[in-house]
Every structure is written in C-alpha cells, then in structure tokens.
C-alpha cells in the first residue's frame, strides 16, 4: 500500500502513542467503569413511532429545531443591530462613536454567561411586563394557529424563546459590529473622496458606494460569526431555554445514557459548524482566487 510507504519512523511512534492512548481509554471504559454501551435507543430520542399517531418528534429533534429557530432569528437581529452599531462607530459625530464603543467594549469584556444572566433576567422579568411584551407572548401562546407553532415551537416557551433570542442577539451584535466596521474601514479612502467629489450626499455615499463593497468583504467573517452564534446558543440551556443542549441534558436525565447522548449532541453540533466552516473557507478561497 502506498500509504504505508509514505510513513516515516516518527509516524509509527505517533501511531503507537495514539493507539496506546485509545487502548487505555477503552480499557478503562470496559473494565474499570464497566459502562454498558447501548446506542440502539439514540435514534428514538430524535424520532419515535407511536401506534396511534405515527412518527413523532422526540426531545432531541424538538431541541434541534429550536436551535435552528434561535440561530435564524438571532443572526438576523444581530446583523441589524451590529450594522447599526458599526455605522455609529464610523460616524463623524463623536458621541455616536463613543456610545457604540462603550456598548461594544462592555459586551466584549464580560463573560457570555454573565451577560446572559443579567440580560435574561432584566429582559424577561423587568422589561417584558412593563412594555406589554409578556401579554403579547401569552396571546401568541394561547392562539391555536399553526404559524405560531412553526415559528416558536412549543407554545409554552414562546416568551422564553423571545427573551433568549433578544439576549443572544444583543450579545452577538457587539461582535458583528466589529466585523462590519472592519469591512467599512477597508473600503479605500479614494472611493469615498471620489464619491464626495461627484457631489453625492453622505447617505448616498454610504448606501451606494461604501456598504456594497464592505458587505462583499464581510461575508466570510460573518459566516464565521454565525458558527460562533450557533455554538453560543448552547449556553442558553443554562437559563432553561429548550434548545439542543438543554434537550440533551433532559435526555441524559430521563434515559441515563450519559455517554451516548453527549457524544450524539457533540456530533450534531460538529456537523452543523463544520459544514459552515467549510463553506466559509470556500467563500474566502473564491475571493482571493479571483
């Protein structure tokens, strides 16, 4: 085999070490912990068959759909907020620049978990009742329409989901704004001066000259940020939002299949994020290749 011809002495050492490591893990699992592997139940944690109603989605699949919902809503909201912050950062008015900067630095310098704890409590327990969003969420939850079910999943958690999405978006917006700012600043000065000299207004300059060029440059890092966002949705499980990691821990408790469930959860996250990162890399190669 060609493969073995290419291996050098060092390769065999590394292979031996890896094999020894995996062997040790296997030995510990099989003989010290006596863990009984049982993967047979895992598919039914996603979809199970019911005699009366046919195929039904189970906890993990519901969690997975919630993860997708949260990721889509948050990415849209955080891109809008982030663009706003970025425009403030590059503004000629200093107070805008300072305000955006303080907000961004504040978010970037406290742990995501602490940010989520502060804002989730503030948003869901304080702002929602005052602004009447709680009543609105309850109205949605009580309505029977299929659209609400499609958009928010389980009706009981509508308010929960909205609050979580807002918190995550506020958090990610700080990072998205830095991406947009870099994109806007990368547009050459001559472009802007050229625009000014033909007499377009500041708004037109931003809208027709700077932003189109900036957006093109920001696509690959934005996809990278989307990966981070998807990974960050997992910490929402800590504030009891029913997303994928939360579903995983629920399934661990109810089935007792600790190893299998956590490995499955990790694999699903890996597949989503790895696919996106391959896509992001391809975008980047496409750009530089031109």
């Amino acid at each position, binding site marked *: 085999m060609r493969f073995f011809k290419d291996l050098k002495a060092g390769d065999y050492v590394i292979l031996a070490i890896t094999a020894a490591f995996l062997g040790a893990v296997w030995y510990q699992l099989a003989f010290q*912990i006596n863990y009984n592997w049982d993967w047979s139940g895992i598919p039914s944690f996603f979809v199970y068959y019911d005699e009366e109603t046919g195929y039904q989605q189970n906890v993990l699949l519901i969690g997975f759909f919630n993860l997708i919902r949260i990721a889509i809503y948050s990415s849209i909201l955080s891109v809008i907020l982030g663009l706003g912050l970025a425009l403030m950062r590059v503004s000629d008015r200093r107070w805008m620049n300072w*305000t955006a900067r303080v907000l961004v630095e504040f978010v970037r*310098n406290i742990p995501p978990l602490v940010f989520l*704890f502060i804002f989730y409590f503030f948003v869901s327990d*304080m702002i929602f009742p*005052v602004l009447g969003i709680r009543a609105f969420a309850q109205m949605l939850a009580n309505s029977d329409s299929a659209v609400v079910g499609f958009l928010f999943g389980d009706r009981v958690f509508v308010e929960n989901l909205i609050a979580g999405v807002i918190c995550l978006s506020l958090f990610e917006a700080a990072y998205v704004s830095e991406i947009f700012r870099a994109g806007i600043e990368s547009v050459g000065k001559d472009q802007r001066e050229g625009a000014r000299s033909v007499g377009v207004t500041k708004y037109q300059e931003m809208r027709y000259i700077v932003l189109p060029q900036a957006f093109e440059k920001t696509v690959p890092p934005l996809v990278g940020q989307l990966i981070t966002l998807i990974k960050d949705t997992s*910490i929402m499980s800590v504030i009891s939002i029913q997303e994928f990691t939360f579903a995983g821990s629920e399934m661990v408790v109810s089935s007792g299949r600790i190893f299998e469930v956590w490995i499955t*959860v990790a694999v699903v996250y890996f597949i989503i994020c790895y696919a996106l990162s391959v896509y992001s890399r391809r975008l980047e190669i496409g750009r530089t290749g031109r």
Partner: protein
Amino acid sequence: MATSSLQTALLRNVKDVVIFLGIFGLLALGMLWVLDQQSYDWQWFRLWRYVYIEHDGQYYAGPLLRGLFTTLEISAYAIVISAIGGFVIAMMRASKLITARAIAKTYIEVVRNIPILVLLFLIYFVLAPVFGLNRFWAGVMTLAIYEAAFAAEIYRSGIEAVPRGQKEAAKSIGLRPLQVMFYVTLPQSLPFILPAMTNLMINLVKHSAIVSVIAIFDLTNEGRNVIAETFMVFEVWFAVAGIYLVVTTILSILASVIENRTKRFYAR
C-alpha cells in the same frame, strides 16, 4: 501635559461629551424606571458582606472574592496547559509527519466546531470518569483543551509570518530543522504571537465562567448562590460583571505593557 490635553480635548467636544453622557444617563434612568415599575428593592449596602467579611478587625474574603480566586486559579492552570498544548499542536501541524499533521488538524477542527459547554459536558461526564479527574480538573482541562486549539492557530500564523528567507538562510548555513525552529523562526515570531496570545488569555478568563455549570464555585457560581440567598439579582450581577471587567481590564493593560516591551526589545 496629559491632563491638559485631555482638558482641551474635552472642551473642544463639549457637545459630544454632553450627548454621550446624556445617552447613558437616559439608559440608566430608563432601567431604574423599569425596575421601579416592578418595585425592585435596591439593597447595595447588603452587598459588601458578600465581598469581604470583617471579624475582630481582621478582613476575610467573602463568597464573591473567594469565587474570584477560584476563577483565577482555574484560569492560571488552564493558561499554562493551553499555551504548552497549543505549542505542541502547532509543531505537529507544521511537522513533516503525515500522522502528526492529521491528528493536529482533527483536534483543531473538532474543538473549534463544538460549543465549549458541550465540550465541558463531554469531558466532565465522559472523559473525567475514565481518567479519574475531579470536577476542578475537568473544568481546567476543558478550558485548556478548548483554548489550546486557538493557541495552536496563533502559533502557526506567527510562525508563518516570519519571512521564508530567514528559514532558508538558516538551513543553508547547516542548521538542523529543530535548530531552525528554536533559534531562528520562533524568536522572530514572538512579536506576532504575544499580542494574540495575551488576547487569548483574556478570553480564557471570560470563558472560565462556563465551569460554574458543573458546580465549581467560581465567581459566577458564587454570584448565583448569593442571589439565591438574598434575591439581590441586579446588585450581585453588576458586582460580578464589574469584577470581571476589572480583571480583564487589568489583564489588557498588562498585555499592552508586555507588547510595548517586546516591541522595544526587538526595535533595538
């Protein structure tokens, strides 16, 4: 000189300063108004006993400070392990051996594409029993493994930033590959590596909050405990966020000092 220039800068931008302060004043007022609507009871005076305890003229660390020490302890271990581990992985990625490259690449891709929380659960629930790690070390290893993948990328880009000619010149005067790496490439890549590494360290301190999920009593978890005991939700979370901000700010000042020193050292 510095203060006078600051003064003139402030005077020149009076309008901007006023609007800037006005915005944050309004934000604070709005928040207070919302909390008032929910009749939130501010009790800042009760916070101090959770930061430090005075007993017979002696001062002891309260829960929050003890939590901070745990956070710093975990971060310190994780920083050392991830700096070394990241270096090993970077060396493996740059190696000529196929298996070394494959293992390093797999490691980086796997770690970078699963959430740190899921990694924590994997290590705490799956690997910790296998290797007999306790909670504390499961937390340390999670942070170390997670950040090592990023550290490896930093080392790699630092090494790649050194001009090729340097390596070729070193090879042509007869240095062996390891000598080229340690005497020529690495010393020159240090100015590229250090700023990114200090940034990574700051990130690690922030990410360490995640270990509160497996009941390690770090700053975040102590904060949650104090809240469960006293219901001072905002006071405690603001205090916790403030402590994290102070720590990260001190670290970033230290980072810029180190950066300036290395720059000056290399400029000589």
